[in-house]
């Protein structure tokens, strides 16, 4: 799973560009499955929103069409775009609201950990992102 330390995120947004490059071979924040925002409640700090592939994964149970699964070996959570209806229940169920519901695609998208070697972690110099 992904370990995030928001307190040391500097808001450089390199991870968003790395993810966009990985996902869509071009650069825009919208293509990224990790999102960095200013923390309005705590000035000077940032919020890091990304699927952490957490052990509890409440999104699985929340999905009405069983489109979300978790690999028993790798622990990676995936959403099947064929089954997903874009209802957004997974977003509500996720403590970080991590799934990205894009109006373009019509389905929810989450980080796939780059199949086990996440690029954002490689690009994160401050060390706010770590793979466990």
């Amino acid at each position: 799973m992904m370990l995030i330390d928001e307190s040391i995120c500097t808001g450089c947004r390199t991870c968003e560009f790395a993810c966009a490059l990985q996902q869509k071979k071009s650069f825009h924040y919208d293509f990224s499955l990790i999102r960095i925002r200013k923390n309005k409640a705590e000035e000077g700090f940032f919020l890091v929103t990304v699927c952490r592939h957490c052990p509890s994964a409440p999104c699985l149970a929340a999905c009405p069409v069983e489109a979300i699964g978790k690999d028993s070996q790798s622990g990676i959570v995936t959403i099947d775009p064929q089954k997903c209806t874009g209802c957004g229940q997974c977003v509500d169920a996720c403590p970080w609201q991590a799934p990205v519901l894009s109006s373009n695609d019509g389905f929810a998208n989450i980080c796939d950990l780059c199949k086990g070697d996440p690029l954002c972690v490689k690009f994160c110099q401050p060390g706010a992102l770590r793979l466990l």
Partner: protein
Amino acid sequence: MYAYAGKILHVDLTAEKVREEPLSQERVKKLMGGRGVNAALLFELTKPGIDPLGEENILLFGTGALSGTCAPSSGRMTITAKGPATNLYLKSSVGGHFAPELKFAGYDYLVIHGKARRPVYLWIQDEKVTIRDASHLWGKDVPDTDELIQEELKNDRVETAGIGPAGENLVKFAAIMIGHNSAGRGGLGAVMGAKKLKAVAVQGHKPVEVARPELFKNLSLRALQTLAGFEGRKGLSLYGTAGLVPIRNEMQLFPVKNFQEDHLEGAYQFSGQYLAEKGYLKNRFGCSACGTSCHRFTTVDEGKYKGSKSGGPEYETVAAFGGGCKVIDTEAILKANELCNRYGMDTISTGSVIQWAMECREKEVLDAEGVNLTWGNGEAIVELVRRIAFRQDIGDLLAEGVKRAAEKVGHDSWKWAIHVKGLEQSRAEVRARKGYALALAVNPRGPDHLCSQVYAEDGATPEARALIKKICGSEKYATHVMPEKRGAIVRWHEDCYAATDALGLCTFVTLSRGYLIDPKMMTEFYAHATGTEVSEEELLEVGHRIVTLEKAFNVREGATRKDDTLAWRFMNEPIRSGPRRGMTTPQKELDLMLDEYYELHGWDRATGWPKKETLESLGLEKVAEELARFGKIPR
């Protein structure tokens, strides 16, 4: 078009008209991006002799060729205009996250023409441009303005470049702020204020495409490894630029008391280390794609300045307010920094003008009502920042900068007005460091290190010594106390600096904090981004062309060799103590360096004007014709 958005946006505030111009391949080939295209447009679109605060001046925002990608530290933007302090060429480089967003909004360049009738701000979203009323924002400080704009546009992804009260009040060193980042030097904020332009807000959805995504990714990772492997960068990340204070102070190369002294007892109290140790540092900020994140976020949680919070302070800020004014009061310095960021004012010049005023008081030629201008008075610097931003009492005099203020005050005060061409100097000791002396004397915008930071001349690292050997033919030139070969050293750094700025990279990764992303790697980034191969020679030639264009602008404005000089103090008053006691950089030494520098440039020795054949060899024939029209081509 790979890497580039492909368009220049022209906004005429007088006519309230908007026009697009394609970014031509020819421009890109000659000047690459950022600072380069800015310089060409400034030269082409203005006439000599215009008032920098008048309708005819233009204000250019230029993104780097690599901005909006994951190339490390690639989000820098250059803002260019004719400068109010110097009446000469002015560019300022700034970080933050504005450059990528301008590209996403559809434009590589934004050119502001004319002057609005009432305060306005620009809203640029996905190639749609609106000129919006800003009368409710006029007078507000920068952070409040940013927030109000986001609320009004119902969009929290908007990036803003704007001014505070200092720019509105035409302070000669008002800055344009991008969040906590400052395009500080020379008064660009005043240019914007004179145009009644409060802010430019941008947001967009057009992605930046690169020609070879996989290769670009691998190169970016390799660059990151190169950066991570350099020991000196850890200090930059941990302590920021102000982490340099202790070492500079220890070496007695830390200007104090308006350059009267070179060491300050207690300077540790405004170092980056101290700010981290004592808990003033709460977080670090990273500009676009920059994990080094040298920028600070500091707060004051107790005492007189409780509640103060801001980006910074940087080395130059603490060196100006702390060293320069002999103030050891950490919290007063943090407060002064915060106010400069809120009001939108350059901390280098603000600190400079205050220490000049303190020396005036020391020499009994100036006093301020209600402000005690003694050296070391922290309260005074905070109060003066306010008065300068709002042009109150002595603030009105100081807001004009040291050159004009000294002209008004008289009494030999010009002798300690540390400026060249009308711009205040950054904290570099130029009596001892000859390369810096030359670099500051010839910098087209005025005396600072941000045009050719010749950090290698100290020979402090193996890379530095290797570079000096490459440039000069021998490592024996890797010492800062000799004037020989400084021309060659400055020349190389100028070209590399300009190329860095054209690409949108931060010079902290290419030359001023380690020579890490070297010209070869820069060409690789450019090739993988755009699909166009360039050689190292071509890259540095682009840099050279940019530097020459900037010189041509100044020549057309009437600048000559006599403007490439140093402040009187450095040529006439020796260093008072320490290992470099007795040193000055006298005219004879400066002449030796200038002669070599002009020779290497192909500029006329007597005037400093670029020769016709020099301009032609760089493909600047039209520039040569224009200069000839004004009688500025050497016989």
